């Protein structure tokens, strides 16, 4: 375990207490799920490894040192020996920082992960906590972790790195996030896949409130050989609203207005519609082999992370 700087400042709420929580999560993960997680992954690339993988036809220009002379002697064919090349796993954490993720954030200068007046955390803050936890687990396993904040495009990026000591940069990156912009998953993920050469696991943390739909964006990840995983951040205030009476509903992102008089029946109908929306996303992910997890902001992020680790395969 890398040494932790106890005197490090706590940027935007990611303080020592938070760090201890992450460490605890890591220890628990190691004890309970030992062997199921490995930092080392064999890539399908052939390269300068020591373990034989396969042969292929020699083509002019290949390194003659890798010619398998024994095969040439027996079969009179020029084959080139291929070795499996060990390389780091890349974990890309894409965090939605659009305006809709602001729900629950008082916006009075308090850190994102600080609970609001009602004791609840903003969606973006919750997503940041989950992202920090995933990053810490990844960094602890010597994976390379990169973070991207997006809304209508990639707004900010923390380049990939490895080692636990990098967690503070992650904190800085997450602590500097501010909700802004309109969600455009397709544009954001398209930009991401085209800018990222190394393939890896792409964890998308978002509420997936995109008027154009989330399907194309997630498919883009698949098409570009990323291994997408989805964590849908859901706030109970939007899933089961307690609004009543004559209201002027304003969309946080688009500013679109709708005047309604909410009744109990309408709120129940909305809750059903929201549930259907989430189920549709889940069904989409399942049908395409995308890991899906619904994160209710009511649930402490530690519990969520234990669930992530318990299910293991979420990060494959």
């Amino acid at each position, binding site marked *: 375990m890398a040494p932790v700087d106890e005197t490090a400042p706590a940027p935007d709420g990611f303080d020592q207490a938070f760090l201890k929580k992450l460490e605890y999560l890591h220890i628990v993960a190691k004890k309970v799920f030992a062997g199921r997680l490995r930092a080392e992954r064999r890539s399908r690339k052939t390269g300068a490894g020591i373990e034989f993988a396969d042969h292929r036809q020699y083509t002019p220009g290949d390194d003659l040192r890798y010619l398998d002379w024994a095969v040439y002697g027996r079969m009179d064919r020029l084959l080139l020996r291929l070795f499996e090349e060990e390389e780091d796993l890349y974990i890309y954490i894409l965090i939605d920082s659009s305006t809709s993720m602001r729900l629950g954030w008082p916006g009075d200068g308090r850190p994102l992960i600080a609970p609001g007046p009602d004791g609840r955390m903003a969606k973006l803050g919750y997503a940041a906590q989950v992202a920090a936890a995933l990053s810490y687990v990844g960094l602890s396993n010597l994976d390379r972790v990169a973070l991207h904040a997006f809304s209508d495009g990639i707004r900010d990026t923390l380049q990939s790195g490895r080692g636990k000591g990098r967690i503070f940069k992650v904190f800085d990156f997450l602590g500097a996030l501010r909700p802004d912009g309109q969600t455009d998953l397709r544009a954001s993920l398209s930009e991401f896949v085209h800018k990222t050469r190394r393939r890896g696991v792409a964890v998308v943390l978002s509420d997936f409130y995109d008027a154009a739909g989330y399907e194309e964006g997630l498919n883009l990840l698949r098409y570009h050989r990323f291994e997408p995983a989805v964590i849908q951040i859901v706030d109970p205030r939007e899933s089961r609203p307690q609004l009543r009476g*004559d209201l002027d509903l*304003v969309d946080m992102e688009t500013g679109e207005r709708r005047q309604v008089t909410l009744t109990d029946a309408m709120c129940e109908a909305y809750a059903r519609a929201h549930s259907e929306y989430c189920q549709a996303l889940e069904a989409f992910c399942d049908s395409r082999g995308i890991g899906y997890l619904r994160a209710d902001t009511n649930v402490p992020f530690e519990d969520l992370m234990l669930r992530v680790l318990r299910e293991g395969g979420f990060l494959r």
Partner: protein
Amino acid sequence: MTLLGLPLLQLLSIFAAAGGAVTALYLLKQQRRRVEVPFVQLWQRVLQRSDATSWWRRLLRLLSLLLQLVIVALLVASMGDPRLGRSQSGRTLVLLIDASASMQARLGGAAGAATSRLQVAQGQAREFIRSLGGDDLAVVVALDGQPAPMGGLSYDERELLAQVEGVRARDTGADLPSAIELARALLAGRPRPTVVLFSDGGFEDASLQALTTARVEGGLDVRYVPLPQVARPGAAGRVGNAAITALAVRRYRRNRLSYEVLVRMMWFPEAQPSGVTRDGTVPTGQAGGTAQPATLELLQDGEVVDVQAIELMPNQAVERIYNNLSGAGRNIEARLRLNGATDVLGLDDRAFTVLPERRRQRVLIVTRGNLFLEGALLATGAGEENHLTIERVAPAAYDAARAARYDVVIFDAFTPSTAPGAHAIYLDPQGADSPFAIAATAKSPLLTDVDGTHPVLRWVSLADVNMSRASVFRPGPGDRVLAGMFKQPMLLAREEHTAGGLRRSVAVGFDLRQSDLPLRVAFPVLLMNALDWFAGDVDEDLGSRRTGQTWRMPLLRGSGDKATGGAGARAAGRSPGLGTTANLLLPDGELLAVPVSEGYALHYGQRVGFYELSPPDAAPPAQRFAANLSDVTESAATIRPALREGAMGPSLRPPEAGEQALRRTLWPYLLLAALALLWLEWWTYHRRYTV
């Protein structure tokens, strides 16, 4: 109680305004609360589903508006005080509540703790009002000496109860005939006219004839609610009412400065049979029984001057006379106290009177010499110790300025060129200067027409008075013919209202020396009457008055002037005749402005006690007098369990309750309905049924 009772047009105007306001408020764009949501498209999906039922929602909103308009309509309608249509079976009632003096008597219970008859009668009236039907229209009339309605005819229970509360007991008798006449006027032309009498039944038999008249001529259905028979657990010994039925003071004819006082008392034990007459006589066979000891006290200015133990026989008058009382303006009070018996009515246990001030009169005789005249004046009280001071002057030495300093000037066969500033007696005025215009001269006339009601001719007989000649006067304004022959006035009395006050004069159309009048007893009496009239002393006005009557009190100005003697009396003691009001201080301390007409203040007396009368611009002391009940019928404090029309007529029946216990006033129901609708609107709104 009613609401505004507004007319239909006004109600429609209010409804139009209020309904318009409600509709305008309804149409106004509602200010909605702004709420940010992360993804409004989800809401749109829900709203698109509910749009399918938007027509129903619009209808609900319309229903909500209609509901509010109905609420407004109900409120406006209640302001009109609507009532259900009335049937012809409703009665029109006049509730006569006896407020006479006898209703102040205590009824039942220990002495001091019992309620008065009036309170019991008011309770009966309230109970009856609560039993009235919705169609019964009623009004309350206070039955005292001056019956008057306590309000207007009303269906409203609360209003009628308030009218009952307004009835106050008076120290007067009950004028039943006037009350019945008033009831006839109030009920004329109305359906089922009914009079309900709440009383102790203490009326004179003669007045009960009015009940027969009411039934026969007025078509009134008169009912009677007698007072209940109540036991007197705390009363020891005999129970009844002892009363001072008269307290009179009068001057001696010989010396007008001395008085005698008469006190008349009666004792009425309870269970007194009905039919006491005004003069206090009791029906035959009712005067038996044992004597009731009592104590009579006489007080002057609050000091006891005499105490007598007396015995009162039931229903018999006992009189005591106090001789040679003297004093000026002193307050006399008589108190009667029973020994070993309970007196139910305290009002008539005290009586009051005032020894009227009598100033000396200075009389100037303008004569060439007339022993008849001077002798008659001596007989009426002239002299040092009496009230008259006589001076004589010859006509040649007469001076009008000097005459103004006297109270009375008597012109004997002399006519001054100008009238004196004093009261005057003109004996045979002649010529153009005569203040009484002379129309003709009659020879050897006889006085055929004599007005014996005038104070000047009281106890005076002018029959067969002989005279050789007499002037026939032409009466002017304010003149009153005292005597004459076949409509030819020969004796006149005049009252003039001048700036100096009320001036009176008497004219005799013949010369005393040519008549046998001075030889008769009538002459000094006539002179004495005239002087008393000038002084404002009429025996019936002395000392005390009787309640239940309209008093006509001469206004005397500046009684404080008496210190100046006779010279100032004329200017001092006469009515100004110009003011329209005077101040009257009642026994309970209330100060009233009473009207003044022709120099007399008018007031209907309702309270027993001492009064003070003064012109508004005069300084004290004011004229003081007293008032007493002096009503045997009231003092008898009779309770009749049954009342008959006349002596032998049918008994009056008690009234029936109303045909419907339910009042037909609708406004409470309308308000309740509005309240229920308001609650329904509130409930449906908060349950989101109507939004």
